[in-house]
């Protein structure tokens, strides 16, 4: 495109406003990118918790009380869903971002890599919940 000053020609420029709503593929792309906002929010919430923990028992209990508010519960429901969307898209993209893997001379299929990712997340989730349970009851 030629946008030099003083040019008389005014070429048609396709408007890009709302471009991502034109195609379900782009919508999925934007939803995937928006999960970053959820990840950022959760990092900030945890950071707030760590700061409160460092301040002492009073501050920590205030943070815990804030976490019990209905708004916080609602937000964490949304965050949980966003984390799921993030994990789903992350493992779907993983076969494309990873270097090619070969087992016995055969290229490992993308769907296998995606399934391995989900298996790892399932394992980690059960492990974290189990470890927390063990720690809570002991």
């Amino acid at each position: 495109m030629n946008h030099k000053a003083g040019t008389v020609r005014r070429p048609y420029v396709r408007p890009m406003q709302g471009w991502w709503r034109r195609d379900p593929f782009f919508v999925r792309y934007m939803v995937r990118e928006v999960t970053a906002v959820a990840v950022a929010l959760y990092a900030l919430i945890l950071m707030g918790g760590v700061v409160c923990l460092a301040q002492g028992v009073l501050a920590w209990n205030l943070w815990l009380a804030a976490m019990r508010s209905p708004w916080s519960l609602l937000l964490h429901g949304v965050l949980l869903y966003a984390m799921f969307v993030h994990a789903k898209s992350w493992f779907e993209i993983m076969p494309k971002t990873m270097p090619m893997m070969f087992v016995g001379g055969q290229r490992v299929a993308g769907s296998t890599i995606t399934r391995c990712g989900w298996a790892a997340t399932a394992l980690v989730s059960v492990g974290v919940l189990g470890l927390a349970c063990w720690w809570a009851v002991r």
Partner: protein
Amino acid sequence: MRKRSNAPVFWLLFGAGGMLSALFGMALVFITGIVVPLGVEPYGDLMSYSRMVRFAQNWLGKGFIFAIVALFAWHAAHRIYHSLHDLGVHTGALAKLACYGGALVVTAVTAIALLSVGF
């Protein structure tokens, strides 16, 4: 010699944070944001002050908290920075500073708080 790009560093932090949040994100949000606040047994008292201080004082717990918070922040900062272009925002030094600077502040604040919890 050409100046080396710093992009791989940000990309690496983005990837590490993305992987960590894909693996741990759901379980952690579920525990800290839903199960513990609702008092679902046996997790009702899991995040009591004494328990959490002991967790944050343990080097493994400290490392875990730091890795989760910092890498989540760097992952989000990188992705948000690159999405600004898609939303029609022309990114420049200021947007870069806001995104990566934000992640840096989160990293520093978390590190200082974790250190002041003690060992």
